[in-house]
């Protein structure tokens, strides 16, 4: 996994609540058997004026001029500013894959849906929860100032505004450690293989019907 330490980038808005995973990446793109290439279809139904199909050359499709990510001022954005319950809906990891492939490294919102939140960390994408009033303020500042950038310092757990002001954020110790070091959790878990085997042997004794039933 890609490590995340510090990132400075242009901020773009996704200014609506309850952005669901179907909106982030519509189902027809889930037919891919790869992990990459979802970026051009991020927010497909909002971004383009036609219905997208997998494998299509998106550079020829009509863009929706009213969708913020299509505004010239947000081109090259890597920090997404969003509203409450971002990423609700399905477990599709294609959602963080699409955000990552588009170029986002961090998402700031007052709240995230659980599965999406968890999936982000597995892909080097940092979801940051900030107080609703702070998010409101960031939206105002971003709208007011073209080229508005934020710096995200994971080590210090801080978002740094252009004027140097800092905002602290919480992040789980384990997730932070993995993200800072770009660690693969499977390798880490397998360090505990003996504990897993011990548990498994005990479980097999207590509940043998859970083993070898489906063959």
């Amino acid at each position, binding site marked *: 996994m890609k490590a995340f330490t510090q990132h400075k980038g242009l901020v773009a808005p996704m200014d609506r609540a309850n952005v*669901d995973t179907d909106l982030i990446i519509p*189902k027809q793109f889930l037919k891919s*058997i790869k992990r990459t290439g979802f970026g051009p279809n991020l927010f497909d139904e909002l971004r383009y004026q036609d219905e997208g199909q997998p494998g299509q050359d998106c550079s020829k499709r009509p863009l929706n001029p009213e969708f913020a990510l299509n505004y010239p001022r947000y081109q090259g954005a890597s920090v997404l500013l969003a509203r409450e319950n971002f990423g609700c809906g399905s*477990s*599709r990891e294609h959602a963080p894959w699409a955000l990552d492939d588009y170029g986002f490294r961090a998402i700031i919102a007052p709240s995230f*849906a659980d*599965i999406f939140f968890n999936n982000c960390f597995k892909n080097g994408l940092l979801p940051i929860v900030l107080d609703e009033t702070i998010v409101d303020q960031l939206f105002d500042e971003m709208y007011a100032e073209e080229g508005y950038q934020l710096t995200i310092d994971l080590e210090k757990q801080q978002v740094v505004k252009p004027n140097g002001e800092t905002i602290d954020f919480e992040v789980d*110790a384990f997730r932070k450690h993995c993200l800072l070091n770009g660690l693969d959790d499977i390798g880490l*878990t397998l360090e505990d293989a003996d504990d*897993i085997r011990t548990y498994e042997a005990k479980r097999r004794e207590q509940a043998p019907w859970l083993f070898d039933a489906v063959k």
Partner: protein
Amino acid sequence: MAGQTLYDKLWQDHLVKSREDGTALIYIDRHLIHEVTSPQAFEGLRLAGRKPWRKDSLVATPDHNVPSEAAERAAGVAGIRDEVSRIQVQTLDENCRDFDVVQFGINEPGQGIVHVIGPETGATLPGMTVVCGDSHTSTHGALGALAHGIGTSEVEHVMATQCLIQKKMKNMLVRVDGELGPGVTAKDVVLAIIGKIGTAGGTGYAIEFGGEVMRNMSMEGRMTVCNMAIEAGARAGMVAVDQITLDYVKDKPYAPKGADWDRAVEAWSQLHSDDDAVFDVVVELRGEEIEPQVSWGTSPEMVVGVSAQVPDPATINDATKRAGIERALEYMGLNAGQKITDIKLDRVFIGSCTNSRIEDLRAAAAVAKGQKKADSVKQVLIVPGSQAVKAQAEKEGLHKVFIDAGFEWREPSCSMCLAMNADKLGAGEHCASTSNRNFEGRQGYGGRTHLVSPGMAAAAAIAGRFVDVREMATAQSEGGI
């Protein structure tokens, strides 16, 4: 010490190791696999030279991409017309072969929507931890299991290690007491719950559904309720084990037999919250206050009773909320204050892991019997959740009732729940759907979904607009059907 909740017990039973950083390794008993969220996980195993930790915990089936039309289905995987879908289903076949994973293939008797076949075969059981790369894995919690959706990286993680790295969730109890009125179903109960707590109301919680209404509900009804826990933001929903659970599980093909059954029943008898268990949040509803529900917007929390009206955003103070309602009304092509019963339907979909089990089809057939779909309704799809449900429905003659009513009887698949196969809504079309998500574009680009129970969907198919299924049922019994 305070007693434990059902979730606390399931967590404790599967705890391999607590780590100092507050995370824990949780052992997974059953891992269900489908074609959409697994290819990248199998590829990850291959790249790392890893093998599944415990093959016998894996059960796979294709459901999302498979065609529902009998003609297209007949030739199996090779017959899937959409090439990208075909490759995905083929990839599942290849991965199951290469890694020696049990798969119920496209037209095999065990095939079906992954959340329908788990409980119906006994592949998912009380007391298990169940995961799947699919958010509606919460369904299996109806058995008294800890079941939740995971992302593809975690699919790979569970295959490689049999464990998940988790943080314990908080406990929420949703109590539905009293009694449901006639014509009011599990679907209405869960929609009413979501309407009350909101789509993020359960975020961070495992929800236990309890109270008299849940205790009296059939297993299939409990599955419908737990299925939609995720629509309230909760990864896991569950119901305590009782006699109804045991009667359901007994004699399922993969359920324990003989002495193992007796031991299992003894172990499962603990699977309920202790009387003195403490929940972080308790939400209460009264069964008799719930009427048949219809969603009007683009989030499952945008739901009202059938006798109500579409809300008026002008009455909402919160700006983000108001904007959300305005946007939803625009997308749905509805007017503020419009009566629900004035909404006309273009298509009707009865199926999905929420409502495609035999009881759902019986409920729809009871309404459709001797009736005809309205001419204005272009299509009514009935898509059984599994081969077993399909066979049972045909044995009971339900398919004839549907066909006589002008409905289409299809093959087991996810179908128009998410429109990954050929079954889709056209732009602007309104659909009465028994599925679980009414998100923009969910059932087809520009499509407009209204979530309802199977009976309500069948009634809408006949009337061409939403009607109160309870009035319909009265009319029918008066008419002597």
